[in-house]
């Protein structure tokens, strides 16, 4: 019940945030369909040269490393406030 309420607050917050945004219609571009086709054409060409799918493990690993560094930095910061555990 409590968790659901908190979750609903979160959901309502997100929805309120989105509601504040103006509706961004695809029609802002006169020829969005054609533009999208061209962009997809280019990206498809890129994907034929760059092995994006095979490079995903690297991306995942890099993400994990960044996450670790972030968590590590937070731990160090917390630790610095604790007496006798070093100030770094």
């Amino acid at each position, binding site marked *: 019940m409590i*968790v659901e309420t908190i979750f609903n607050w979160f959901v309502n917050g*997100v929805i309120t945030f989105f*509601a504040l*945004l103006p*509706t961004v219609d695809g029609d802002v571009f006169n020829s969005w369909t054609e533009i*999208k086709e*061209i962009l997809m054409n280019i990206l498809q*060409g890129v994907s034929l*040269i760059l092995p994006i799918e095979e490079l995903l493990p*690297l991306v995942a690993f890099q993400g994990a490393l960044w996450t670790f560094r972030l968590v590590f930095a937070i731990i160090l910061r917390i630790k610095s406030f604790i007496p006798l555990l070093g100030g770094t």
Partner: protein
Amino acid sequence: MKINAIQLNKIISVVCAVVIALTTFIYSGVSAFATLGTALWSTWDAADEAAQQLAQLYHKTAAAMDNTKAFKQAYPNWYDLPIEWICSHVDVASDIAEAGITATYLLTPAGDLYYYIDDLGNLCVYERVGAGGEARYGASGGGGRPKTVDTSNDTPIFSGDNYADIIRRLNDQYGIKNAKEYISIRTDKRWDYSKSQGRGPISFFEEGEYCGQTNWLDCYILPFYFDGSQYWFGLMERYYSQTVETDDSGNHIYMDVNVFSVIDDTISYTARIVDTDKNVVDFANYRYMELFCSATSSTFLFGRMYDTYSNYIGKSSGKYTYAHFSSYDTSKLNSLYRVYSESCLRNSGFDEYKDFATVYAYAYSNNSNYVDGLDVGYFISDEPIEMGLNWTGIDPEKINPDTFITMEGDTIYDNSITNYEGDTTTINEYINNNYNFDIDINIEGDTIIDIDFGDFLLEITSSIETAISNTINFFFVPEQDVIDSGMDKIKLEIENKLPWIYDIADLLDALFYDVVQQDKDHTITFVPDVGGDDFSFSGDDGASGNVTYIYPYPKWTINLDWYGHDMTITVLDFEMFADYLPTIKSLILVFIYIVYIRNLIQYLPTLIGNVMQMSSSAVSADAIYDHYRDQAELQRGGRV
């Protein structure tokens, strides 16, 4: 009067407004009347395909649920479901639309409980919550939101009145388990024909065959009485032939009759068919017999037999017979008929009290004087007729319509019934308790209440444990449906605000365009200018053949609409490298991995060093002492 263009527009607008208003009014009126009716259609054959699909999916899903043998017995096929359960989306309250349900048809086996098929083809259930937000059945998601029906956790639920209808229908259709024939005086044309011929309702015995059936050695006849809602049975009759060989005059065929109770299976009379002079009838000579069932003070089973077919049809030269019971006490048997019939009729609440046998004879002689809904007839079989699922022990009239029933269990008696207060019990207990949830405790005489203190404590502690567990679950464990609903709301809002959000997904997908593309349909959908290699395959389904692997190549083009002419401008074309693309890709891949791993190796010592420093940076007591000693020394102006 001249009408200018503006006035004409106004007139047309008014006419249109009136037409629209009238159409809406009439349409809503039709909908209202449709709601007032009992069903959108009278049969499933006439129902829309969407409604049939809903019933089929509901039946299939409910039958697949755990422990729903009783449900499958009640509804062996999807078209056994009451068509009255189908209602139109427009006929129900607006909260259905507010809940996001757009299905055309809904299925309501219980009030405020709606099953429907969502856009993905899943069977979903929505429960309308009460004014206080309470979900009575607990069938749908938290707070009365729709959810997909789960066969492992959900069970078929029916309202009390619908459940009573189920019982009535079962009593009608499944009260008798194994009868081969069902002859009703009201509906069976054979009866009308026979009656028009002035004879009994069935071709009882012709050419030495029972009931027109070849190879029937026995013929069981179970007369029934139908009071408009339930069938009632008393005694079942078994006819069978005994062939007796004699030296002097050849074979004799004697027909014997057993009469016994289908209720307790204890009363059994055996008799041999005799004529009115109490001489045993030889059916070797009289091969045709029509049967009458009646009850008077002297006879209750009698027939008329004939020697030839022409006499049988012409009803001439017939010879009356009746069952000659060994005890000669037909009045006793007759009274048994009456006892059973009276109790049946009393239980049925039939106001116009009549003797079963009298009704039977009366109805047979002249069914135009029938009371509506009454019926009599026969169940016929060549084997003992068994009472079906024995569900007649439930009186549907006594089931509280404000309850709901979870149809879970092997028999209908195992189903659980719940009232508004949340009291739950089994149908069996409900019946035993006189269709009441209250349990009366009668203590007779000196009753010693013996309480085991250990058990008592155990019960208390387990109750507390359960209460705490329930509380924790209630307060801190979110319902998955709430999470799903919230995420759906966010998704919907994003889609509303950013209608092109899926275009981004398309663009990202384009990044994963594979250099090797298999054409599964054997038709080329992406046609580069280079050929591929043939590849033979064989599938699990036995299919085999050749598939061409296509090697597309990077080719950047811009499609333009040039004054009404579609033009394609090719900016870059790597056709010349198409054959080498896999190799080029592999090389790029290896290169990127090598560069990344090299950089990682370069960085790792720093990372590892930091971690080591963290783990070893705890300060010892000596270091603290040295630190403060140095600080003090510095304050004194000394040197460290």
